[in-house]
């Protein structure tokens, strides 16, 4: 059933008995044209665009748990395209444009909220770096504004301007940036893909690959049996290394934990997204009223989906330094997600070095905003066997060749990106 205010009112009159499942909970078939491993945002978006844009509908998304239970369901929901390097900007801008039409495309309100993303700077050198970045964005046709201290004051008067350890000198504002309701993104993609015939198979963990005589991947072994596939596409985020290892691959990836935090519900007080350049802290407020915030990764390899107290303190210190008005707001819940941190901090969308296998990985802490473009470009790669131009830089061999996309300039150490 199409979602609209009319269908909602109609259903209200009949006790909402007419709604069916948002997506079909499918049983695995013996074979598909494409099997997508991972029912996160990227896997589901890939399925949607494969079906919608490339007409490939004999597709399964296999998810080991429940869809959206990975990072797609635990991120801080920031969307932006304020990147620096030419390998990144067009891709994230494509994503931003897809966000801007997502709800109409999916007929699902993902609450894409373009209330601005402001990155604060605290020194002249940082301001120069933001000017470089803002200019790179503008040259790519992306919106960016450089704010001076006054401009920041107008945007967020509650910040600590007067007795800050690292005084605020200005900021880079992307007004089109903002947030989106993460769960709705997952469910919306699942529903749209399912409507076009994609099978969404939950509680189905891939445990191995089926190999053809030439070594090519021709299917997957799962906890719910063998599934053959013309092509197998990995979109398993924090588990990329584990799954790729089943195909004998070693990736330039480490799995790290990033924590996130939400406060009790509060009346609106924070406009858009604010990131504190000198501390490890960023914040936005959810539609429900919770302050959603986070900071740096814990820093050690982990598959445990939870972090430790020092980072909680570090993040809250940053928060209090930046906006001492949140001292009496209470932290309601903290959690962790396992991210696939690459050696240059940028993602990989490429053929795996094994025929039949496609790789979408390395999203670090920034892959939520990438969800639409990642799905779009990955679908393009799978359908056409050629990279989408916006994602052409995300090659796996860039590490060996040195054509890395290192936004932070931290080099080949995953936890520094």
């Amino acid at each position, binding site marked *: 059933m199409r979602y609209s205010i009319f269908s909602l009112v109609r259903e209200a009159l009949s006790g909402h008995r007419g709604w069916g499942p948002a997506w079909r909970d499918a049983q695995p078939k013996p074979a598909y044209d494409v099997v997508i491993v991972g029912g996160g945002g990227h896997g589901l978006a890939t399925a949607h665009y494969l079906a919608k844009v490339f007409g490939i509908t004999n597709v399964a998304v296999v998810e080991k748990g429940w869809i959206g239970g990975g990072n797609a369901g635990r991120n801080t929901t920031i969307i932006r395209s304020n990147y620096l390097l030419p390998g990144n900007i067009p891709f994230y801008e494509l994503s931003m444009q897809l966000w801007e039409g997502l709800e109409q495309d999916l007929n699902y309100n993902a609450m894409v909220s373009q209330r601005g993303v402001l990155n604060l700077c605290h020194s002249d050198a940082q301001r120069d770096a933001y000017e470089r970045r803002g200019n790179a964005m503008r040259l790519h046709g992306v919106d960016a504004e450089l704010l001076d201290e006054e401009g920041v004051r107008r945007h967020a008067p509650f910040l600590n301007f007067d007795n800050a350890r690292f005084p605020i000198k200005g900021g880079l504002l992307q007004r089109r940036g903002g947030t989106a309701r993460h769960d709705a993104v997952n469910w919306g993609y699942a529903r749209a893909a399912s409507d076009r015939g994609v099978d969404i198979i939950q509680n189905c963990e891939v445990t191995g690959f089926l190999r053809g005589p030439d070594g090519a991947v021709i299917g997957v072994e799962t906890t719910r049996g063998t599934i053959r596939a013309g092509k197998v596409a990995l979109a398993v985020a924090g588990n990329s290394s584990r799954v790729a290892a089943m195909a004998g691959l070693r*990736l*330039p990836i480490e*799995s790290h934990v990033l924590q996130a935090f939400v406060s009790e519900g509060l009346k609106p007080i924070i406009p858009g997204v604010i990131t504190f350049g000198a501390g490890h802290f960023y914040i936005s407020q959810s539609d429900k009223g919770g302050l959603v915030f986070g900071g740096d990764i814990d820093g*050690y*390899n*982990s598959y445990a989906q939870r972090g*430790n107290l*020092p980072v909680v303190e570090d993040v809250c210190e940053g928060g209090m330094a930046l906006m001492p008005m949140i001292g009496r707001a209470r932290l309601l819940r903290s959690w962790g997600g396992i991210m696939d941190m690459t*050696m240059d901090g940028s993602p990989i969308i490429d053929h795996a070095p094994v025929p039949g296998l496609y790789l979408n990985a390395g999203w670090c802490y920034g892959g939520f905003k990438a969800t639409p473009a990642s799905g779009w470009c990955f679908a393009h790669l799978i359908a056409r066997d050629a990279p989408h131009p916006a994602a052409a830089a995300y090659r796996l061999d860039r590490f060996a060749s040195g054509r890395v996309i290192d936004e932070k300039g931290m080099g*080949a150490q995953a936890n520094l990106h």
Partner: protein
Amino acid sequence: MRIPCPYCGERDAHEFVYRGDAAPQRPDGAEANEAAFADYVYPRANVAGAMHEHWYHAQGCRTWIVVERDTRSHAIAGATLAREAKR
């Protein structure tokens, strides 16, 4: 998380700087080529399970140590000084 520094005793993990997998060995610098170095620098086993890894006790004895830790549970089996582990 508490890390048993072989010198200092048990310390909170925030005193340490993490580097990662201790398994990759730097190729012989005089001999090895680009490919060997690229293989040393970029790919990682990224083990889900027990792993030997390098930590630096930056806010303590300023020593690099090798910690055996399970990446799924964070349970730590032990630690040695890196320079001794090498020998």
